[in-house]
């Protein structure tokens, strides 16, 4: 897997430990959010990013599509802790890339979009119990999640990056040497925002974290003492998800998949991506 070289500036923690043990035997501590693809990637689990399954047209009768159209409301869950994908304004309104995509999907379905915050681990745990209809929350398609959710085609792709605390002095991949997943100790927090908060608070359990490039950019812009390092480690395909344990939804899935296809084709997603991320993430970037 990915090998990262070491330079002169080693992590302080690694250095101290390396003095006691043999160099290279120390696992690098990398903080990730629980239930994220970064965690799966770092630990080398089988639950890796994956392509969506083929989607077929279906009859709307008795489908979730029908009940959404009857209610006139599409209930969309998203975690409001992720700027610029999904966050709140001081007046309480929802804004962000995912919010615009969700609103556009609802509009093209001819219904109103209704957003509700759910913690990310609650959304990805599945079994939504019909409390909401779909997730437009930048969910990565993975082999494991495909057991729980039906996915549309990706509406965008974000590159996953490593970031280091400023105090570690690490600024590029050349400063590091470890193999993922063999030499990595994954330290989990409820969300990857907590990893950044811990570094801000001066905690020293880790100096590295892995999350999406956009989250890191947002934190750096917010003045947080972290540095984005190197090239993307991998690309995540991010999709709209529907709970497989919920009602029949083949027709809704097909409709939303078609809508996302149209939004790719007519440039809506490119425009939204450039508006929120300053770059076009709607197509898969060339991986390193």
């Amino acid at each position, binding site marked *: 897997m990915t090998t990262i070289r070491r330079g002169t500036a080693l992590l302080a923690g690694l250095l101290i430990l390396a003095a006691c043990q043999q160099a290279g035997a120390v696992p690098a501590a990398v903080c990730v959010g629980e239930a994220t693809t970064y965690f799966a990637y770092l630990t080398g689990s089988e639950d890796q990013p994956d392509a969506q399954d083929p989607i077929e047209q279906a009859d709307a009768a008795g489908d979730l599509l029908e009940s959404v159209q009857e209610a006139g409301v599409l209930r969309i869950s998203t975690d409001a802790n992720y700027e610029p994908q999904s966050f*709140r304004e001081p007046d309480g309104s929802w804004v962000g890339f995912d919010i615009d995509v969700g609103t556009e999907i609802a509009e093209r379905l001819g219904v109103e979009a209704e957003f*509700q915050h759910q*913690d990310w681990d609650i959304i990805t745990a599945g*079994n939504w*119990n019909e*409390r909401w209809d779909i997730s437009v929350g930048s969910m990565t398609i993975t082999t494991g999640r495909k057991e729980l959710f039906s996915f549309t085609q990706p509406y965008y792709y974000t590159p996953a990056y490593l970031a280091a605390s400023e105090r570690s002095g690490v600024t590029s991949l050349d400063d590091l040497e470890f193999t993922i997943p063999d030499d990595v100790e994954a330290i989990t927090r409820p969300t990857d925002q907590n990893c950044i908060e811990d570094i801000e608070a001066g905690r020293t359990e880790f100096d590295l974290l892995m999350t999406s490039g956009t989250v890191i950019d947002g*934190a750096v812009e917010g003045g947080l003492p972290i540095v984005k390092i190197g090239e993307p480690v991998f690309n995540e395909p991010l999709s709209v998800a529907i709970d497989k344990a919920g009602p029949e939804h083949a027709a809704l899935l097909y409709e939303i998949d078609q809508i996302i296809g149209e939004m790719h084709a007519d440039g809506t997603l490119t425009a939204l991506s450039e508006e929120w991320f300053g770059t076009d993430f709607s197509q898969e970037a060339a991986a390193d």
Partner: protein
Amino acid sequence: MTVAEIPQPGSLLAQIEESQARYRSIFRLKFFATWAGLIGLLLAGLYFTGNIDTAFIAEWGPFIIGGAGLTVFVSAVSIVFATILALIGAIGRLSRNPYINGIASLYVSLVRGTPLIVQIYFIYLALPQLGIVLAAIPSGIIALSFNYGAYMTEVFRAGIQAVPRGQREAAQSLGLTERLVMWRIVMPQAFRIVIPAIGNDFVAMLKDSSLVSILAVEELLFRSQLVGRQNFRSLEALVIAAAVYWLLTIIFSYFQQRLELRMARGDR
């Protein structure tokens, strides 16, 4: 010694009262000066060492404080249900019927023996597996009501038992029925005894209602965490939430004190 030098009993009493009043007002002045001084020190310390972003507070303060309405709503509804549950529970705990007594005792033991956060998660996340799907706010209210109902059951039971036996006997000797004795003689007196305890429980409930933030109920703590995380200003956001909780409990404690004074009139 002339007569004029002996103080009149009436004026002596007035002097004592006056000096006591002066002492009380000086005490109060020093008391509040201590509070103001300490709180001022705390805020100044936070401001100068914590890199406080006042623009953030001005921008997001109203949004966070807007969650207080839901905090008060959830707490108030829950305390009403908890009181009803506690009343039923207390009567059950005092019942001579072994089945009713057993049910009430099991309720108290089970609820007091498990953490509130587990109960909240259980109602929201586990009940759906049994086919009962509740929204976040009702889940939170049910969990808080059941939890506090159990604690208050014991408070009510103790309150009923604290009414002197003579009251019950006197009422019975007047020929009142068992039911009338309970509702007209014992309960009103028991209620007066438990009022301070209910007040305490409500203050505790105001704070424990923060636990329903884990269900993404947009109350005070939820909003504070959301905003704090989103803007990486956790200190400011949590201080705002803490201040509002504190203010709410101070306001409530004031009314509780007045209510207690009123209820205590019969004791004089």
